[in-house]
C-alpha cells in the first residue's frame, strides 16, 4: 500500500537521505532501524509531508503523494506520531481526540451555530469514537484531565489513540517506546500488534528498542548514514554482517 522509491532528501550540502526505498503491504508492521542520526526521522518527515523530498517517489495506494501538503497526506490515511510527544497539552484528553476527528465532523459554521441534526449526529459519533479509544488505551478515567498533566506513558498512549481516531490506513510511529519502562513497553507491543490484527492498520515503526522491533516487525529496513543498508525479516537482519558492523563497529 505504501511504496517508496529512491527517496532522497538534501539539506544544502548534506544528503540526509540517499536513495532509500521501502514498501509496506496491507496489515504489515515494517520497522526502520539504524544508528542515531541515520536519517530515519527525516524519512518520516518526507513521508508525512513535513519535508518536500528532493528526489524519489512516494506512492500511497498507487497515487504519488510526495510534495503534497502535510494535512492532505494525513487526510489520505497516513498519520504519524512524533519522537517527542506532541499533544495539545492545555486541552483535555477528550478534546485532543475530538480535534483529531476534525475532518469527520460537520464543519459548516451555520449548522454548528444552529446545532442541526447532522451536526449533532456527527458530534456524538466522534464522542463515541473517542470514548471507544480511550477505553481501549485505558485512559477513560482521565478523559477530562488536561493532556499535559498525564504521566509520560499515558501521553504516549494518548498520542496513538489520537492517531487511531482519524481512522488511518497507515500509522507511522516514531520511537513510541522511548522513555517507557519495560512493563509499558510490553503493553505497547501488544497494542501495536492489535492495531494490525484487529483494525487492519499497517504500521511503519522507528524504534531503538531491539527486543520490541524484533518481536513485532514483519520486515525490517536498516538505514545507515542516510543510505539503505539492509532489509529483510527480523531473522535475516539479525544475521546480517553489515548490520552488525554498523551497530557494533568492526570486530
Amino acid at each position, binding site marked *: 500500500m505504501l511504496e517508496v522509491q529512491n527517496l532522497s532528501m538534501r539539506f544544502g550540502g548534506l544528503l540526509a537521505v540517499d536513495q532509500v526505498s521501502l514498501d509496506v503491504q496491507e496489515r504489515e508492521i515494517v520497522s526502520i532501524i539504524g544508528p542515531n542520526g541515520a536519517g530515519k526521522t527525516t524519512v518520516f518527515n518526507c513521508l508525512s509531508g513535513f519535508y518536500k523530498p528532493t528526489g524519489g517517489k512516494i506512492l500511497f495506494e498507487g497515487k504519488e503523494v510526495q510534495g503534497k501538503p502535510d*494535512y492532505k497526506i494525513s487526510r489520505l490515511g497516513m498519520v504519524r506520531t512524533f519522537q517527542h510527544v506532541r499533544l*495539545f497539552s492545555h486541552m483535555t484528553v477528550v478534546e485532543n481526540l*475530538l*480535534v483529531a476527528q476534525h475532518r469527520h465532523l*460537520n464543519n459548516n459554521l451555520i449548522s454548528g451555530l444552529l446545532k442541526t441534526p447532522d451536526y449533532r449526529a456527527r458530534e456524538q459519533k466522534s464522542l463515541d469514537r473517542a470514548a471507544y479509544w480511550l477505553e481501549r488505551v485505558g485512559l477513560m478515567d482521565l478523559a477530562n484531565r488536561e493532556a499535559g498533566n498525564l504521566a509520560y506513558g499515558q501521553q504516549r498512549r494518548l498520542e496513538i489513540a489520537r492517531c487511531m481516531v482519524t481512522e488511518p490506513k497507515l500509522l507511522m510511529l516514531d520511537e513510541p517506546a522511548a522513555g517507557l519502562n519495560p512493563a509499558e513497553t510490553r503493553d505497547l507491543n501488544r497494542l501495536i500488534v492489535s492495531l494490525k490484527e484487529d483494525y487492519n492498520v499497517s504500521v511503519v515503526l522507528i524504534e531503538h528498542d531491539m527486543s520490541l522491533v524484533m518481536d513485532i516487525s514483519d520486515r525490517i529496513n536498516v538505514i545507515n548514514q542516510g543510505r539503505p543498508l539492509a532489509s529483510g525479516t527480523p531473522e535475516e537482519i539479525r544475521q546480517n554482517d553489515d548490520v552488525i558492523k554498523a551497530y557494533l563497529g568492526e570486530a
Partner: protein
Amino acid sequence: MAANNFKHALFCAVITLIIAYPILGFNLEAQGVDITLSGADTFTLVMVALAALAVFAFQLFREQIMGAIASVPTPVPSAPREPMNENKRARIESWVLTGILVLALFWPFFVSRGAVDLATLVLIYIMLALGLNVVVGLAGLLDLGYVAFYAVGAYTFALLSQYIGISFWLALPLGALLAALFGLVLGFPVLRLRGDYLAIVTLGFGEIIRILLNNWTNLTGGPNGIGGIPEPTLFGMEFGRRVKEEGNTSFHETFGIAYASEHKVIFLYLIALVLAVLTALVIRRLMRMPVGRAWEALREDEIAARSLGLSRTAVKLSAFTIGAFFAGFAGTVFASKQGFISPESFVFLESAIILAIVVLGGMGSQLGVILAAIAVTILPELAREFSEYRMLIFGAAMVLMMVWRPQGLMPMRRIHIELKRQG
C-alpha cells in the same frame, strides 16, 4: 549584605531623582510666541525629594517589609478548594448571568444619561475584546492592528450613509462583512508569519488603514472626519426631536409621550447590549464547535495539528476573519453612537487597550474578558480627577495584575465533556 542593600537602595533613589526631577521640576510656559522654561515651585521639589527618600527607605528595608507583608495571613486561601460539582456550577453560573442581563436591561431607565453613554461604550469594548479574544486568546495569533477592522466597520457605515444614505440596520451586517473581508484579505499573506513577525505586520496594517483614512481626503474627509452619521431607527421611528428623513415617524409622537433626549441614548444602549450578548453567545458556541477546537489545537501545537489533517491556513484565516467580523460590528455601533468619526478614534492605543483587556481578563476566557472590559473602560472615567495621572494609574494596575495574576482575572476553564462508556 547590608552594604549591598545600601548601594542598591542608593542607586534606586538616584534613578528616581533622575526620572522625576526633569519631568516634574521644569515647566514649559508659553509667553506669547515664545516658550520659556521655568522651575517648579518648592512644594513639587520637596515632593520629588520625599519620593526619592521613600524609594531609598523601601529598598533598604525591603526584605523586612516584604517579610512583614508575607506574614499577614491572606484572606483568600491559597490551598486549592474542593472543585464544585460541574453541573451545580453551570447552574449557578447561568442564574448569575441571567440576573446580570435582566439588571442590564432595566438599569438605564434609572440612571443618568452620561452613565448610559459610558455603558454603551463599555458594551462596544466588550464586543471588540470578545472578537480579539478569538484571534489572540484562542488561536494564539498576536494581532496588534485589530483597531483597523474596527475602523473599517465604522467607516463603512459613515461613508455609505454619507454617499448612499443607508440606514444603521443595513450598515450593521455590511460593516461587519466588509471588515471580515479585510481580515480575510490581510490574513492570506501574513498568516505564514508567527509570533513577533505577525505582531509587527498587523501593527503596520493598523497604521496603514489609519493613515489611509487620514490622507484620502476626497473620500473620507481626512482628519476632519465624517459627521452626520444617522442614529438607528426602530421600525422607521426616529429618536430625534424632528424627523430627518421622509417617510419616517418620530418615536415620541408615535407613542404620544414627551420628547426626551434620553430615549435615543437608551435605545442605542439596548442595541449595543443585544449585539454584545449576541457576540458572546455566538463566540461561545464557536468555541465548542470543531472550528473552536481547531483554533486552540493550532495554538497549542501547530505541527501536531497539521499531522492530524488540520489545514493551517484555513484554521488561522477563520479565526482572523471571525475576529475582524465582530470588530466591524462594534465599529458600526460606535459610528452610530458618536455620530461623527475621524481617524483619531482608531489610533494604535485603541488596539493596545483592547489587547490589554484580553490579557487582563484571561486569554480565552469570555467572562474574564467581559469583566476586564468593564474595568478598563470605567476605571479611567472614575480616575478622571487624577487627570494626567490616569494613564500612570492604568499602567500601574496592569503591572500589579501581571505580578499577582499573570493568567488574568479569570483564566479560561476547560469544558467538561461527558462520555458514554462503550460497552
